[in-house]
């Protein structure tokens, strides 16, 4: 694996991966802090640990490709281009939020970026992704619909219905399972008869691949290849990225169902320091250059928090707005 980064992407792109992973982590950790201060309320599901998946996958897609996700989707929105300050304002419930404060943490949406939503009913985004892919094909648009979901979603009916449908209608859907091994507190082998999730697509004859979701380069290469396959064949493809969330399912979950040894094993595979090290070893960045990136990310997130704090609340009349056209 060593000394290969420059074969994968230009330096600028490689550094952007680090930048995006770092701001995702920084954003989530500041969210946790703002939650404990009571500025963010409701459910808050943080992405820390899984950054390589959002960053690698987004880089492997075209800007016109749709992205849909579940309720742990702050990083996917930000990496796609959503302004961190507008995402933070959304979490604060402010009028300047991405969705005017009406969606919250679980319902980010940015159609101008083709980020088509965070959905909080497990598996709800599967058929919607299929429908977007159908519309794209119908309209002759060159788009893939990339559908992110967790390991817990694969036992919903919509998973099977949508895999079947996407293959039956030959639609450009890229299914990306972020297998972090736990659906809240239930480990994958306790909910799935076949815990090796990527093998589940054989019933629908959809090609699939398993990739190390802690390695941004591995995810990038796999998704780039898969997205091109989808474009080339017009058929769905499936990626399982194994990863780990460093925090509980949500802020309400202390995560006691996982052992210290397991946590330590995954912490040692933290995608950020490992990737930083590769960048340095391969001479793509100096430590000082990475420090600069980190400092800029921190400033951006600081500004996002300030922006959210200072933003106005929604007007009361907003209750009745945006329901019907």
């Amino acid at each position, binding site marked *: 694996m060593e000394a290969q980064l420059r074969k994968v992407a230009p330096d600028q792109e490689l550094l952007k991966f680090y930048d995006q992973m770092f701001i995702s982590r920084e954003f989530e950790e500041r969210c946790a802090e703002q939650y404990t201060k009571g500025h963010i309320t409701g459910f808050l599901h943080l992405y820390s640990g899984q950054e390589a998946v959002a960053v690698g996958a987004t880089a492997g897609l075209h800007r016109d490709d*749709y992205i849909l996700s579940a309720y742990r989707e702050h990083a996917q929105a930000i990496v796609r281009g959503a302004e961190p300050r507008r995402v933070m304002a959304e979490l604060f419930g402010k009028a300047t*939020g*991405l*969705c*005017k*404060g*009406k*969606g919250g943490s679980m*319902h980010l*949406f*940015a*159609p101008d970026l083709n980020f*088509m*939503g965070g*959905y909080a*009913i497990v598996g*709800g985004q*599967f*058929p*919607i*992704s*299929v*429908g*977007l*892919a*159908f*519309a*794209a094909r*119908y*309209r002759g648009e060159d788009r893939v*619909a990339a559908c992110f979901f967790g390991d817990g979603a694969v036992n919903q*009916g*919509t998973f099977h*219905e*949508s895999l*079947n*449908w996407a293959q*039956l*209608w030959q639609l450009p859907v890229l299914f990306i399972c972020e297998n972090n091994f736990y659906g809240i507190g239930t480990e994958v082998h306790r909910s799935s008869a076949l815990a090796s999730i990527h093998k589940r697509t054989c019933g629908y004859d959809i090609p699939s691949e398993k990739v190390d979701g802690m390695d941004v380069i591995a995810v990038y290469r796999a998704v780039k290849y898969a997205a091109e396959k989808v474009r080339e064949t017009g058929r769905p493809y499936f990626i399982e990225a194994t990863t780990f969330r460093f925090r509980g399912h949500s802020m309400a979950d202390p995560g006691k169902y996982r052992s210290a040894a397991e946590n330590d094993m995954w912490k040692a595979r933290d995608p950020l320091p490992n990737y930083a090290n590769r960048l340095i070893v391969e001479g793509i960045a100096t430590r000082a250059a990475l420090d600069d990136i980190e400092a800029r990310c921190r400033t951006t997130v600081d500004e996002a928090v300030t922006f959210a704090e200072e933003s106005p609340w929604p007007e009361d009349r907003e209750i009745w*707005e*945006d*329901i*019907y*056209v």
Partner: protein
Amino acid sequence: MSEMTYRDALNLALKEEMRHDPSVVVLGEDVALYEGAFKVTRGLLSEFGEERVKDTPISENTIIGVSVGAAMGGLRPVAELMTVNFALLAMDQIVNHMAKIRSMFGGQTCLPMTIRMPGGGGSQLGAQHSQSLETYFMHCPGMYVLYPATPADAKGLLKSAIRNNNPVIFLEHELLYNSKGEVPDDPEFLVPIGKADVKRAGEQVTIVAYARMTILALQVADELASSGISCEVVDLRSLTPLDDETILTSVRKTGRAVVVEECWRTCGLGAEIASRIHEQCFDILKAPVKRVSGLDVPMPYSRKIEKLCIPQVETITQAVMDVMSDNY
């Protein structure tokens, strides 16, 4: 004007809207090759081809989810659920997704989609195929609910639904498919969403009804006219939004109201409408509002007892007589 059946009026509405707008697509179980379980989609596949008229797997929740995605992606899907009973399999996509998406995403998208569903009881189809679930949909904000009684309204309302940029639940009564009526020929004939229709003017009692119940109410009004009782029949047509103005204007004129609903009585739309009338017209009411409802039971099969579970001409007539009575 042309005389045609409710089924043919719906079929014509679909064809006209597909000709009118290439982004209209029709999808559902057996809608293409088989031309629909109730033949409402007859001739669509041959005229519009398999890219626009799509048979789907038996996956109701995904039929709606795919329609949601397609609508978000720039199409104007018309989904058929074979019957309203199967909509219960799709309630997650209908209620949690379709009805929420515009609002929870801050108005950044809209879902111009229609879900057609045949429904209603009276054909001895048993408990799982005879339900009237209109109230389930009315309870949820974020979508419209339409339910026509006549061929003309069926055509004009379906066209309005397809052209509307909001999600629309479009109910069709299975026992009305063969009913006939005059339908305007103008391809721009539209029935507005949210407007009830006074199907018969009268002076003494308002009968509020919808879909097949409107047909029964009109029959009751005819029969009672010969006994000197003058009924006004308000056909709701739109269940969401409810046309309070037309209902209340009629009740203010007559001073009495009977609400006829095919759905179950408990928490039914009759309760909602009776409540609105009582809240707004209490002072002028000559009698409490009376409901005629489907019985609160799973529908039995046998035609002898199934009949007792659905409002009939006799039960509606009795309700009108009750509110006219001095002793009520």
